[in-house]
């Protein structure tokens, strides 16, 4: 690398750190960085100043609807990928079973798969009763006419679980479902979630240790600090 080339790129360091180079210049500069430890050190030094710039802005609260939108997408992703992960878990567990004749193993897999497809959460209990348990949810039939759902509680130290509901009424744009935890008479706000067009919803519920019940209410988007109405879903623990 020539001194001339180094000096040519050196004057771009500030613009690079601020993201003010054109795409072409950016590519050239990055290529130079690979072979120039002096410029790399200088970038690291000035990056400290650039990293401080966003901390100078007036602190604003993120709009309440933004969280509902982001977490709604996240939960939809979780639902979408669920069958694959379920299949993977099934395969993993089957692979840990003691060796049996191939014909028997195959039949076992079919039975488990059929039970799993038919029973949904039941599969967890059948295949892993030692580390998960499933509790059926009850619904306020005035609000949720054809509701069904379960809370699958994991057995790890965190004592978290996954609440799945079906047949939930659609939410308005400015509404969300919110989970609450009741423990020793105290009602603690938890996650918010939305439901699909079919009324399916899924959310994680953490810190279940010692909880008496999990409840769901309909709240304004962004959630509430205390339930604003009677629960539409209740899971007694």
């Amino acid at each position, binding site marked *: 690398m020539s001194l001339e080339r180094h000096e040519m790129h050196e*004057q*771009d*360091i*500030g*613009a690079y*750190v*601020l*993201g*003010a*180079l*054109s795409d072409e210049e950016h590519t050239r500069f990055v290529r130079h960085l690979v072979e120039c430890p002096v410029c790399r050190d200088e970038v690291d*030094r*000035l*990056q*400290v*100043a*650039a*990293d*401080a*710039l*966003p*901390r*100078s*802005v*007036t*602190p*604003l*609260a*993120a*709009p309440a*609807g*933004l*969280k509902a*939108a*982001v*977490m709604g*997408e*996240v*939960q939809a*992703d*979780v639902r979408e*990928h669920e069958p694959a992960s379920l299949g993977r878990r099934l395969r993993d567990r089957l692979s840990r079973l003691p060796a049996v004749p191939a014909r028997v193993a195959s039949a076992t897999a079919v039975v488990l798969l059929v039970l799993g497809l038919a029973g949904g959460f039941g599969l967890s209990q059948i295949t892993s009763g030692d580390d998960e348990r499933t509790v059926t949810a009850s619904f306020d039939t005035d609000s949720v006419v054809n509701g069904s759902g379960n809370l699958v509680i994991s057995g790890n130290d*965190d004592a*978290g679980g996954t609440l799945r509901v079906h047949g939930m009424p659609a939410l308005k744009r400015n509404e969300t479902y919110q989970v609450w935890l009741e423990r020793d008479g105290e009602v603690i706000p938890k*996650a918010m979630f939305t439901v699909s067009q079919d009324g399916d919803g899924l*959310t*994680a519920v*953490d*810190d279940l240790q010692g909880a008496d019940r999990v409840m769901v209410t309909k709240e304004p988007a962004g959630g509430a600090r205390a339930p604003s109405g009677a629960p539409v879903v209740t899971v007694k623990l």
Partner: protein
Amino acid sequence: MSNLADEEVMHLVQEGDPRAFELFYDRHSGPAFSLAYRMVGNRTVAEDVSQEAFLSIWRSKLRYQPDRGSVRTWVLGIVHHRAIDALRRNTVHDKRRASAEGIEERFEARERTDVEVARRDEALTVRAAIDELPAEQSRVIELAYFGGFSHSQIADQLEMPIGTVKGRMRLGLEKLRKTIVGDPEPA
């Protein structure tokens, strides 16, 4: 889980844990939205930018590297890139000029939690450091970082040579660094 450090939460997020992601969102959404709004000057676009940034972290499992700075710095870097994309692909610059005055007051975080107080104090400290810079240096830095303008666009706007713009950027950053970190210039 709420007691976990940011780095530990990120580890869970990268494993696809939605509970960890919600906690991650709760911790960083305020600063992320604040930066996006400062850059694009329009609430709707700022929400879009913030949403894109968070979902890109969730979906692409972008790798956080602890040796490159804090989780907050990493998140804000992603928001910054998304906001620049938004600024360069449409007419947000025009919308920003037309946005309602005083809108920041309406959305300003009202909760006086310890976290909010710390955010305000930090903002005032960094703002003061920027204000200490010569005006011509802070101008080019702010146009580049918050405005998303390239050095050649800034040179056009300010009617000065590109070399001068680049020089002021570098000098300004160097001074800002010294004020923030408080260490001497390199030998």
